[in-house]
């Protein structure tokens, strides 16, 4: 199985530790991912601003970069959603169709493709999970409060399986953080206010480590946490799992029986 790692542009430049954790986590689960160097971005920033036409060369570049892989894995549900949902505006060649359906969010890949639903390791902290909208409502990685009172999802299941980790029960389980791509600049006032409200929910309910599957939301929330000098650490969930696995409580292989078969 050939797995291509897609590290979104802003993670590459500003959060390399998230890319590293993603790479190492996959490695610990038995997947040696490859990082094609010519990759840049999925094109979402332009398209969400209305400039889908300008973004088409970026789409083609993305497809050229990853067409040769069985799976494309990215630590960002938002970029994945964009590739899957919005690459319908370029010619649907075999390569485009393949890349659209082979691109996975990291935790969707771990859960759905590798069949891993529990992770070993220890992380003795209270963790607050920020559900990112594109992963949740777009890729259906978690239940939605609009549909059901049951708060359940891929990432919360994986987090709960880690020893010592407790999950924060939030007042509003799945409200948007207000990042929204260029929205965070053009609608700065509302964006900031939404982020402040989200962070406040975590502070009120005892979160020590604020996490999520999408670094773009976390970048925005971290910006607020640092500005307000709040006693919260912001970590991508890949960093938590990778750190937890440094001190595995049980051997990895016994916990991921489906993994090898799936590969």
């Amino acid at each position, binding site marked *: 199985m050939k797995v291509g790692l897609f590290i979104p542009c802003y993670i590459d430049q*500003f959060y390399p530790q998230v890319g590293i954790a993603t790479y190492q986590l996959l490695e610990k689960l038995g997947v040696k991912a490859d990082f094609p160097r010519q990759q840049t971005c999925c094109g979402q920033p332009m398209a969400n601003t*209305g400039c889908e036409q300008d973004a088409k060369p970026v789409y083609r570049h993305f497809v050229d970069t990853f067409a040769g892989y069985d799976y494309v894995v990215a630590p960002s549900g938002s970029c994945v959603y964009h590739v899957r949902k919005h690459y319908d505006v370029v010619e649907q060649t075999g390569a485009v169709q393949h890349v659209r359906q082979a691109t996975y969010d990291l935790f969707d890949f771990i859960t759905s493709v590798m069949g891993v639903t529990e992770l070993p390791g220890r992380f003795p902290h209270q963790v607050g999970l920020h559900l990112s909208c594109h992963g949740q409502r777009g890729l259906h990685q978690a239940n939605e409060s609009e549909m059901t009172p049951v708060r359940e999802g891929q990432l919360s299941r994986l987090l709960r399986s880690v020893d010592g980790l407790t999950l924060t029960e939030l007042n509003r389980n799945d409200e948007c953080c207000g990042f929204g791509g260029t929205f965070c600049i053009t609608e700065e006032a509302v964006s900031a206010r939404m982020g402040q409200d989200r962070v406040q929910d975590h502070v009120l309910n005892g979160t020590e480590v604020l996490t999520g599957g999408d670094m773009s939301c976390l970048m925005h929330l971290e910006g607020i946490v640092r500005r307000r000098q709040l006693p919260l650490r912001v970590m991508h969930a890949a960093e938590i799992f990778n750190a937890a696995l440094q001190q595995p409580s049980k051997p990895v292989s016994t916990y991921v029986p489906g993994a090898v078969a799936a590969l």
Partner: protein
Amino acid sequence: MSHPQRAAAFTSDAERTTWHDETLWFVRQKRDKAVYGIPEFQQLRQLASDIKEHTLSRLDEYLEQFEQNARANGVTVHWAADAEEHNRIVLDLIRKAGATSLVKSKSMLTEECHLNPYLVKNGIAVVDTDLGERIVQLREEAPSHLVLPAIHLKKEDVGETFHLHLGTPKGEKDPQALTEAARLHLREKFLIGEVAITGVNFAVAETGAVVVCTNEGNADLGVNLARVHIACMGMEKLIPRTADLGVFTRLLARSATGQPVTTYTSHFARPAEGREMHIVIVDNGRTRQLGRPDFRASLKCIRCGACMNTCPVYRRSGGHSYDFTVPGPIGAILSPNIDMRQHSSLPFASTLCGSCTDVCPVKIDIHAQLYKWRQIIAQEGELPAAKKLGMKLLSSVLARPGIYRFGGKVAREGLRFLPHGLTHAAAFNPWAKARELPEPPKQSFRDWYAQQVVK
């Protein structure tokens, strides 16, 4: 002014923003409880969506059927191509009735057509009889929400307004006392009403009847006391059969306020003995929207307001920030059809979180339509120049890996070595008004990866 400017003004009162957000979130939670209690709720949504899609697919046939049946019931049916024609028809009917005043229950269509100012200019006294509508009317404001027109006001604000206009004691803010004052005030108006205007929630093609849903019973009071009833409706309000109605009445109130059903569901089929009943069917851009394949589904809307209550942007920017009759996410996809230039900032007043689509009782893909309007607005040249140029530049960088790597390094290094006061100057960098920028690392991920491979 654009949405961001009006929204910034709203959020500058942080305490009021908190109150507005929490008030509407409370309504959203009431909706959730009502929805969770109905196991077949998602099937109901699908059914409602299917009925509406079907009706829109042969709207011409259903409109004619409706007209024919309404006429057979003794109702006079009028057709208005736009707001102006609608207003003229209504004024003519009032004049023919020899009336100088009227009572009006809730109707977003008449708001859309700006009927009130038109009638007042022509010497007709208009009294809105829905409590929220009456409050904003006294304040000479527009409604800020489809279902809760005065939701932007606190009870103290209402007390102040009633003190000025209805003579309640200064400082009175007890909701019960204020409602009682409004009730007495409105009773007088009902009793002298010569003409009653109502909106229409549903128009049933097979019977020619219209259905009006209220919680206050004000539509019934108005119609039953007046000699002439004028029902004003957008042409998308049709449903084929009475049997379809239950699907929508189950969804409407639950989605809007979390009630199982509105307090009053009033059926108006024919005029009483010696009275008149008129129905004005209005297009006003709806045919144009029907002709846009990407946006025709917006005409399924039953005006429940659920998308507003759930929208994290609406809750923090207020209904008036949209400056359109229908605010919130649904307004942001309806307004560009009316005037794209004037409303060009509205489809961008969203993070595309998708919650609106998930609560919509008739399954309008609101967030997908917001995305599509953005593309059209950009293509039609309605994006601000800086944004347009910036996106072009960004695209050309991101299609060229070499330039991207160089640019990324320059940005990262720049952030590391430039002084904080410069990189975080709010005048150049809106991000930094309320947020820190990420701490720039020495090494990018690709640099790290290159070293791993060498090792």
